[in-house]
């Protein structure tokens, strides 16, 4: 975790709803791992005068790392950015995802949220021959995934969050990561958890992970805004997250 300066080197519209920003970053940041993210402020000068506008840093999710100094992040295409924009970057924030050692089949679920936080794992997993399925649920079904790798299987869930071959997908998966928006996360996770239970009877530890997306004012474990109450333990999303084993969560 460090604060460093970066800038936007290039902007590419990659699909209907998404753009990718290529950031020139310090080498330490280019080594970021899947699961980790950046807390970013756009700044005018090297010294950040108006650090109250806005107060909260934006959480940017790297989706690709290149040449040891370029990170691509994926952002909603409606946000407007300019090449050359100077950035103050806090990062890396969070713990890398811990993958199953014998991972063959990965299930990714994005519920009501664009899947950017899940994408950095794709190059490495696909290169290792892991089959990856990305299920888009609720408003995430509108996500235009045309720019994602062809080997990735994309599934659109029904309104009741089910999908064709759901039994098979759950059965084959060695691990699953579920991304939700902050609002209503508990309800959504709990619904997905019951779906999984129906198919699997028992959910093992280290199998089903929630990827949390609370706002993070400090990103370093000081303000306690991002604290989660797990069964018997309190965890900080910024230090211990973003992935939490859903079997340890207190869901409604």
């Amino acid at each position, binding site marked *: 975790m460090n604060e460093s300066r970066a800038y936007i080197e290039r902007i590419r519209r990659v699909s209907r709803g998404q753009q990718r920003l290529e950031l020139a970053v310090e080498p330490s940041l280019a080594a970021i791992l899947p699961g980790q993210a950046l807390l970013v402020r756009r700044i005018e000068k090297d010294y950040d005068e108006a650090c109250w506008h806005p*107060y*909260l840093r934006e959480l940017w999710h790297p989706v690709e790392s290149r040449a040891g100094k370029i990170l691509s992040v994926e952002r909603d295409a409606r946000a407007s950015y300019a090449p050359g924009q100077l950035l103050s970057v806090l990062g890396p924030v969070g713990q890398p995802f811990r993958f199953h050692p014998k991972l063959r089949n990965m299930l990714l679920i994005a519920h009501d949220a664009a899947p950017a936080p899940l994408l950095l794992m794709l190059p490495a997993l696909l290169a290792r021959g892991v089959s990856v399925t990305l299920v888009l649920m609720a408003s995430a079904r509108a996500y235009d995934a045309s720019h994602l790798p062809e080997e990735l299987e994309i599934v659109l869930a029904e309104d009741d969050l089910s999908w064709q071959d759901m039994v098979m997908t759950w059965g084959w998966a060695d691990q699953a990561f579920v991304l939700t928006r902050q609002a209503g996360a508990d309800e959504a996770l709990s619904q997905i958890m019951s779906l999984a239970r129906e198919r699997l009877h028992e959910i093992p530890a280290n199998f089903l992970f929630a990827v949390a997306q609370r706002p993070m004012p400090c990103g370093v474990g000081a*303000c306690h805004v991002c604290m989660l109450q797990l069964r018997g333990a309190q965890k900080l999303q910024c230090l211990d997250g973003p992935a939490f084993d859903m079997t340890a969560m207190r869901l409604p």
Partner: protein
Amino acid sequence: MALEITGSGKNPLRVETPVMPAAGTLGFGDRYKSLVDLGKLGALVTNPVTVEPWRPAAGPRLVPLDAGILVHTGLPNPGLKSVIRKYRRRWATLGIPVILHLAGSTVPRLREAVRLLDEVDEIDALELGLDDGIGARAATQLVAEAAKSEKPLLARLPFYECESLALPVAEAGADALVMTSAPRGTARDAESGKLVSGRVYGPLLKPMILRLVGRLRRELPGEVPIIGCGGIHNPQDARDYIEAGAVAVQVDAATWAQPRVLERIARDLGGWIATRQGDALLDEWNPDMGQTEALRRRASQSGPSRG
């Protein structure tokens, strides 16, 4: 050239620079290590600690505001004993005074807390957080109890009751007054549509609290030091508090937005105060220096424009 920032009753608390984090912004001295050189701060004020463990608040904890944020954490912490056990060794290595912030207490709990704290050499002072809506009677009882500690006692006053509580709390034994905690407010969480209650942070707190500090500096007995807190985002904000009569300042949410701001303010004020104390001439150690000194002098000749 250490500055005394608590009154003369007990061993006074001495700092090298009159700048510290507000309780709840910097953790317990274990966070921000890679981002802020803690040794350059005047003191560490810890996150709020309660005698019993407290759990995090349910529901939305944060609402982004126009030019501010609203925060409601519920002050989660593992309780005083655990905090002491967990962090005392770290505190010993910091090289700056440690001020433990005690929150949400009753007289019997405070008695217990003081007993525990007086045994911990790694803690240099106590800061007692007084809750909003607390009456003068309850506040003075709590302060009088906490003042039995051997350590200097800072009392953090709530925003809306700052004027009415300042004198009684000082008379009850506080060695310094922190003005103020962030005001409470309500905002709608756009994600959930819920109204959320919490504390409000933003630059607009500064003119309001600066006025309180100025007024109370004129009204309170001279020996009660005031520590200004609210909306500080740059060295000039901090200097304005000092010029209004504060001996020191606490920086709040700005640290989250831009951690290097805290250290920069600490370095700036440290040098500035040293220069003022030594009655030195304006010098070039800091680029902002000359102008502010000039402003100060002009201001002290003409005074505020109204009573």
